[in-house]
């Protein structure tokens, strides 16, 4: 597992005439295979996730992924860390399913035949082979999220960050995504409001007002979160 180190990170966004602080002096080291992140809306979870692959560079502090600083080596970090967003429509960039999965492989040095084989295998793994040449926008919500996930995983990142990937899904599709996540070899950092998805995780972080206020095994962390939500 790549070592992810978040060291004294603070971050704020412009808000009206001033700035709103969303993360306050967060420090944490992530080494476990399955890490959950929970917290109320606006607690800083999504900004924290975006820090981990350099989509957001912190105002203060450092984030290191396998020793690479996200501030100076953002591209290297993004090759190591895949990111799956809440809304798959925002993530699917090509017109057809096959083309979108193949999109991430464009700049790889492999032969076209190898790329095609990899795309075909990924489509089969995610149950999308029958939709390969279909328009991506005509897929159901669950299929779109599977496509978004397949498009990230085809590039074989070492870490997968998922920002509330089941929020827009029904129970069946949410559970399907949960099963896929459980079967992955990658280190997974999952932000979610579906607490049942975290049952078998190694560690769960609880965010509140820009700080990590809980850091424990799932049962204890979820109990802490429920207590705070009262």
């Amino acid at each position: 597992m790549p070592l992810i180190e978040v060291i004294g990170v603070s971050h704020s966004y412009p808000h009206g005439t001033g700035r709103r602080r969303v993360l306050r002096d967060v420090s944490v080291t992530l080494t476990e295979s399955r890490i959950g992140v929970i917290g109320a809306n606006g607690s800083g979870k999504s900004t924290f996730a975006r820090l981990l692959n350099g989509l957001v560079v912190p105002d203060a502090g450092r984030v290191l992924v396998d020793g690479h600083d996200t501030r100076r080596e953002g591209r290297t970090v993004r090759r190591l860390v895949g990111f799956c967003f809440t809304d798959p429509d925002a993530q699917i960039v090509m017109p057809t399913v096959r083309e979108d999965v193949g999109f991430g492989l464009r700049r790889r040095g492999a032969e076209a035949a190898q790329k095609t084989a990899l795309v075909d295998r990924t489509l089969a793994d995610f149950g999308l082979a029958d939709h390969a040449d279909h328009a991506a926008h005509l897929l159901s919500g669950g299929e779109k999220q599977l496509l978004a996930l397949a498009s990230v995983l085809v590039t074989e990142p070492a870490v997968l960050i998922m920002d509330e990937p089941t929020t827009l899904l029904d129970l069946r599709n949410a559970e399907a995504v949960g099963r896929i996540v459980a079967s992955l070899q990658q280190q997974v950092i999952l932000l979610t409001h579906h607490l049942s998805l975290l049952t078998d995780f190694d560690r769960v972080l609880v965010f509140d007002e820009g700080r990590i206020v809980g850091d424990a095994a799932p049962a204890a962390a979820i109990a802490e979160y429920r207590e705070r939500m009262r």
Partner: protein
Amino acid sequence: MSLTTTYLPGNTVIHRLPAGIKLVLLAATGVALTVLNLWWEPVAVLGVVLACYLLAGFPVRTLAAQLRSMSWVLLAISVFQLVASGWQSMVDVIVTLAAMVLAAGLVSLTTGMEALTEVLLRILRPFRRFGVAPERMALLISLSVRSVSVIAGLAQEVRDAQRARGLGGSARAFAVPLLVRSLRHAEALGEALMARGLDD
């Protein structure tokens, strides 16, 4: 090519033609329709285009769908041409337009975006020395095609929300949320492209 037409995969002669040849034929069709003067000549070209639709195995409803999006424009031009220049001119203009739209639609229906962008990359590669970035141009076109369906979906959602709140006739109530949501989508798309390694 048409930005609103989705690729329908198949294994017909038309599908198997290389994308470059299809684009050359499309350009040739455009030139032919421009230089042919007699009223029946565009009709003959339209006949060839329709035959190609049959060869590609598309039903009549696919053909009709290509024309439906511009039916009002065709109708308006028909009336104008009929009044201003007579029926022969009307046939010439309308058939020319319809043949071109159908020919472009046929290329989109039978050619994947990957194949089209590959051709575009080959065409633009010599212009690299003048500062043109072929990969970015090809990506821009792919994103434009993808965005048409996304924006259409957003427009439908906004329209439904408008109706639910009894604001069916308000242009402002339609335009403002559509603009806001489109901008949000653009921002999210930029973030997704960056996450997928497109920042270099």
